[in-house]
């Protein structure tokens, strides 16, 4: 199967600002047929898409709470239906916050421990390589990707956390260069260094770091590309 035959939909809310980056990377680097979905467009059925990306940014200015308003927009209802039928949805940064606010993923996002916006490279340990988002990643691999957020301090209650653990839903944890999950490598105070999680079924994932900014060698890391390669591999083998 040719990558061009794979159709990706990228949601665009007022204030989304990583939409263009995801679009360029999917089309130009991975040769996928990616297009935008405007938040007001009444696409009742997203099934023509092989996967959906909810990109980062400041949807609705992040007024009220990060992602709270976007989670209630018409297109997110369609994404919920799409996910319920097993569709693959990836939320990056603000997209992760939107998925949490929409109830598609468990937990909440707090302001960073530093109470500051943090932009830097981090390392991620891949804990589960049997998901559509990580199936091309080597087991236990450490991936280098940038973060850029103010509210990335993931929190969930003990019972939710144990649920995530049982379902192998914790996909990425912040770690040091060698894969050690340490307090020093946690950039924002996230509980248990959690950087990315999936839903119980494994078809919806959110992560704070930006894979689209680390999919080309010239940008200092190609590691983020493994997420997109995994999705492509999964769709091809499905």
């Amino acid at each position, binding site marked *: 199967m040719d990558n061009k035959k794979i159709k990706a939909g990228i949601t665009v809310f*007022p204030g989304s600002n990583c939409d263009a980056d995801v679009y360029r990377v999917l089309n130009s680097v991975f040769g996928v047929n990616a297009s935008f979905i405007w938040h007001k467009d009444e696409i009742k059925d997203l099934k023509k898409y092989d996967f959906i990306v909810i990109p980062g940014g400041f949807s609705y200015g992040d007024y009220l709470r990060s992602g709270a308003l976007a989670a209630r927009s018409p297109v997110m209802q369609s994404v919920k239906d799409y996910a319920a039928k097993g569709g693959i949805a990836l939320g990056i940064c603000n997209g992760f916050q939107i998925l949490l606010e929409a109830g598609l993923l468990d937990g909440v996002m707090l302001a960073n421990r530093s109470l500051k916006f943090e932009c830097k490279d981090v390392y991620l340990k891949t804990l589960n390589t049997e998901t559509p988002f990580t199936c091309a990643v080597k087991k236990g691999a450490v991936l280098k990707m940038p973060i850029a957020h103010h509210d990335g301090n993931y929190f969930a209650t003990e019972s939710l956390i144990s649920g995530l653990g049982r379902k192998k839903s914790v996909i990425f944890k912040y770690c040091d260069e060698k894969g050690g999950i340490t307090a020093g490598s946690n950039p924002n105070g996230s509980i248990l260094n959690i950087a990315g999680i999936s839903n119980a079924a494994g078809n919806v994932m959110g992560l704070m770091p930006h894979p689209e900014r680390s999919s080309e060698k010239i940008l200092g890391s190609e590691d983020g590309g493994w997420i997109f390669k995994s999705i492509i591999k999964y769709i091809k083998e499905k």
Partner: protein
Amino acid sequence: MDKTKKQAEKLFGLSAEEYEKISELLGREPDSFELGIFSAMWSEHCSYKSSKVYLKTLPTEGGKVLIGPGENAGVVDFGDGDVLVFKMESHNHPSFIEPFQGSATGVGGIMRDIFTMGARPVANLNSLRFGSFSHPRTPYYLSEVVKGIGFYGNCMGVPTVGGEVVFDECYNDNILVNAFTIGIAKKDGIFLSSKCEVGNIVVYVGSATGMDGIHGATMASEEFDLKKNKKRSTVQVGDPFTEKLLLEACLEAMEKKLIVSIQDMGAAGLTSSSFEMADKSGKGMLIDLDAIPLRTAGMAPVEMMLSESQERMLIACEKEKFAELKAVFDKWGLNCVKAGEVIKEKVIKFYYKSKIYKTLDVDVIVNGPEYKRPLKKPQYLNKIKSVKINNYKIPENLNALAVKIITHPNIASKRAVFTQYDYSIGTATIVPPGFSAAVLRANVNSCKGFLLNAGGNSRYTYLDPFTGGALAVTECARNITACGGYPAAITDCLNFASPEDPEVMWQFAYAVEGIKSAAVKLNTPVISGNVSFYNETAKKDGDKTYVSKIYPTPVIGMLGFIDDAGSAVTPFFKDEGDEIYLLGSLKGSLGGSLYMELAYGDFRQKPAGLDLDYEVRLQNCLRSLINKGFLKSAADISEGGIFTALAESAVTNPEKILGFNVNCDIKALGLRIDEFLFSEFEQAFIITMVQKPDGRRKSETAAILKKYGIKSEKIGVVEKGAMKINGIINLKSGKIKEGYYSAV
């Protein structure tokens, strides 16, 4: 009459002579509406009345310049049908009154200048000046300004890729916030404010008009008195979310060819946008004040005209295309109202409550005064002498002093600042902030790149205004050349105290002359910029009142080009064993240096001059070596001297902790050890090459050096773990790295 006149001075910042001139032009005394308009348009901030005479002398054409000063921003050819549009602007006064909103709206304003031209902003830089690091209010200003810049830029999705942060007590009472934005557009997709046609509809788009920022332009054209807090209402309040929508809506409308002419409502809001558009187009306008969307009901006409509410634009559009234009702004949830029409007669007719309210002549308003203010060589300059080095005993512990320098807030890493800015969005940032210059690529499909740098050195400008002005240009160029780039064009922000002080005006005149000389030599035309005067504050110390003035602070923003962004050279050492060379010659100039301040408590001495012909040769030589692929790193010698250049090259390697072992025959150079280590007014670079280069490489290097007449001397090797110079400096790299990254 006297009462109005007094009011004109007090509230509107117009001088008695200007008031007389206005009365003469009108043939009667102005009313309060007219006074408001005149005060804004004739303010220093909008009219450049004190600086115009000098700005006219700057080179503005040549090279790849397509559009020079005069429009919202300058335009440079980027090849393949693309152009780069950039400008830098100050937002000093608002940021001192309210640092968060002041800096945020500074960033918002400069981005609007760029997308008004049809360009999508792709990078921001800034130059920030705060009071001394230990001043009790500095942490407040620093954290609020940085937060404000991040708040606006991050939300807009425009990476903030570089800049500078400088602390000096001369800014204790006047901080400086200079913001730079660059955007990319298609060569045939540039929009101007000068294209209005008779019959076009004048359209108001964006946020509603509120009571914020009224008299902002006038406020920015005055010094601060003892009641600065009363000026809070003159500061605008920013909403980056709305600006992001405005950006997308404007670019979409431009793409659909729905816009004839456009100007953003920046300083003096609706006043400057309407009068300037009309003037540049050689037309007039009807403006219907009843149509202006308001946040506060019942605003008076003069308040509507002077409000500096953010995120607004004025557009001229063809009648039949208005519906389509409105559909675009509706999609983005923004106001888009018919607010008037372009007319032939060069006047602006204001309608209010459905009647003609005022008619003002465009030429009278826009052709403000132009002054050639008196100049006087500042007295203090007579006391600035060359350093008599023999009067100064070399400090016993040079190692301790070296540590003090590398961990000084002006030298140490500003990582804590720039990590609060999103610098990686856009997937174009190849070399992030924290190194010589930011390097960006054109887009995901092309490695064609450009480089950006912003900075200036106010201490040297204070000690020698001409040389300081020239140095701001050469220093930016060095940082671009050290990456392998070609300097192409500049924008400038000229921050000074009151132009009514002849000594300040003298500093200004000479600094501009310095900028001009260097810009001509380096072939980097000045394509945009702004002037910020009145950066001074009346202070009270017990019974005494005095005026606290900033040092003259010309800041340059420079654009450079590079064929392959991926091949850009970074300043940090790469591998153990690499050979370290000094490219260029040392002068041993300690006047004005950080060393003189820290070791002897006085930096007020004369720095060496700049040899601009040598500078050009040196930079061309360095670029040739880089283009050959011979260099593994290149860093210029500036603040903190050769020691700092070496130490920074060692500690800024992101992956390892490196050091160096340098042995240099300083006697042969005729220098004392401290002159060698800490002289910062140098025209030289620290470069590294592979160990034991082969014969071909050696001979080609020698040929390049000979061609440009530049000396290069091997002074040491890259080592692990320790920094050693001539057996005198001996420091642990790990410790220095820790200090370097944690001082600010």
